[in-house]
């Protein structure tokens, strides 16, 4: 994809007004604060930075492999490399089912489904090409866009029907689907996803009044880039394990699989519904 189109897509996708439902999620931050586990010793900002590092790290390690794999599935189908719609759909379902089975915390699972479904709707209603613009566009790759749109619509239908074996439509999988359908590169898509996760946590912190809006900007500019880049680099080689049967049982193969790296965060996030008063849904 040409650089200018890619940067334009990044502008659109990083818009905080994008209707993806992320504004109701705090990724366990609200629960952490309520349990008096947010504050850590150190200069101002140490606490939110520590939370961000842990949260970004565990999310990258547990979710990004699914984002990358889903992106590849959709890109391969859109380009015609995978011919059958059913094969691509089955692969996405396997990814989503495994992510669902690996996400052992019901609060995170609930938030993930809500945001994932919102992304599929965003694509089918907000990012497909309106018919008035079909004919004259210079950058219109008709075949590719039609195949991508058909796959996303089929997936959305399956999620919505909610039959017993249907995919739930989890956020990391649907993000990979969205960016794969739009033609972003897989690395760009993963990078943006992780950045948005971190920014979502920060804006939750601002709304909870534990970080000021200017301090949040400072962190975004000076600290978050390292956190996101490090997590991306250390997880780039991971696979979801859902698409291949070849996963050997030696520890080198095991270590390429997704993992959660923050058990305390899991407990706190799962206790979110116990909070007496709460602003967020997760």
């Amino acid at each position, binding site marked *: 994809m040409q650089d200018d189109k890619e940067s334009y897509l990044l502008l659109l996708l990083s818009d905080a007004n994008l209707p993806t439902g992320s504004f109701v999620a705090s990724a366990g931050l609200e629960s952490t604060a*309520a349990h008096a586990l947010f504050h850590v010793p150190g200069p101002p900002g140490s606490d939110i930075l520590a939370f961000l590092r842990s949260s970004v790290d565990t999310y990258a390690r547990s979710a990004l492999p699914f984002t990358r794999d889903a992106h590849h599935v959709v890109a391969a189908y859109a380009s015609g490399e995978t011919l059958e719609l059913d094969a691509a759909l089955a692969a996405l379902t396997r990814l989503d089912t495994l992510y669902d089975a*690996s996400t052992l915390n019901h609060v995170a699972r609930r938030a993930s489904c809500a945001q994932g479904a919102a992304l599929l709707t965003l694509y089918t209603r907000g990012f497909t090409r309106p018919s008035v613009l079909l004919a004259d566009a210079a950058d219109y790759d008709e075949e590719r866009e039609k195949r991508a749109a058909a796959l996303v619509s089929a997936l959305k239908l399956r999620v919505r029907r909610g039959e017993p074996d249907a995919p739930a439509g989890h956020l990391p999988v649907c993000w990979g689907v969205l960016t794969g359908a739009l033609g972003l590169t897989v690395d760009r898509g993963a990078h943006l996803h992780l950045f948005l996760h971190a920014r979502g946590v920060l804006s939750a912190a601002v709304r909870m009044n534990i970080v000021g809006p200017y301090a949040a900007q400072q962190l975004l500019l000076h600290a978050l880039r390292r956190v996101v880049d490090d997590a991306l680099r250390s997880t780039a080689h991971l696979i979801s394990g859902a698409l291949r049967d070849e996963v050997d049982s030696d520890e080198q193969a*095991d270590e390429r699989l997704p993992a959660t790296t923050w058990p305390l965060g899991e407990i706190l996030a799962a206790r979110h519904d116990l909070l007496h008063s709460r602003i967020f849904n997760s």
Partner: protein
Amino acid sequence: MSNGGHEAGHGNITAQIHSNRVVFPVLSYTYPLKLLSPRVQQDGVAIVYMITYGGGLVCGDRISLSANIEQDAQLVFLSQGSTKVFKARPGVRAAVPVTLRTLGATTTVTQQRLEVSIAAGGALYLLPDPVTCFRDAAYHQVQTFRLARGASAALLDWYTSGRRARGEEWAFARYYSINEVFVEASPLPRRTLADRMGPYACYATLFLYGPRVQGVVRELEERMRAATVFQVREPLDVLWSLSPVRGEAGNEGRIVRVAGKETEDVKKWLSDALRGLVDVIGGEVYSKIFI
């Protein structure tokens, strides 16, 4: 009981019911692994202790154990004291077969593998003491459980921050654990975990599934429903969560996670939470767990 098998650190168990008692047609092990089954009075239940030479594991040790629990047999699987993982064996270097060294760049990692299949009506209660990794030790554990429909399991995976008496707190290199649970071959959760901690000194994950643990599940759900968190000033001594996970319709599994400031706190919490097992495995057997 017999010493069978050829490779080091291997164990095999088959448990079945023979006129109301659990018997072991197969119970074999090789150094440094040892399996012991003390006699118990309770019908239908047996205990197996997994013991390692010197009560610990050294880098490069590979323990591999498979168990087959046949219809209606209930097996309680325990360790004798916390499993200590050393970076290197203090003092004598015991004979290590050459095959271990030729397995690539993995000799510094201590590995433990467990594969268990459980038939209908059968149950596995895997309730060992926690794993304690000493400074710089690396531990890698893969546990796979295959449950038939109607089988039950209570699977505990827990670890401490290290030898705190010696000032070692989260000083180990890594603790990596994969638990795979299949019910009739469809994967339930896979949980993996690598080296990251918090202010707590002991973490536990408990997986509950099947008809025999429903009493325990019901009680935990009741306690969770009654809990409400107001803003607290100080971190709680014990923090726990309960989440349902997919299973057959109407028979979901549960994941319980516990963190505690002290290992004893977590042990006490677990022993209390699982007390309902007394109705299933009997008081005598239960009294040997969490001591």
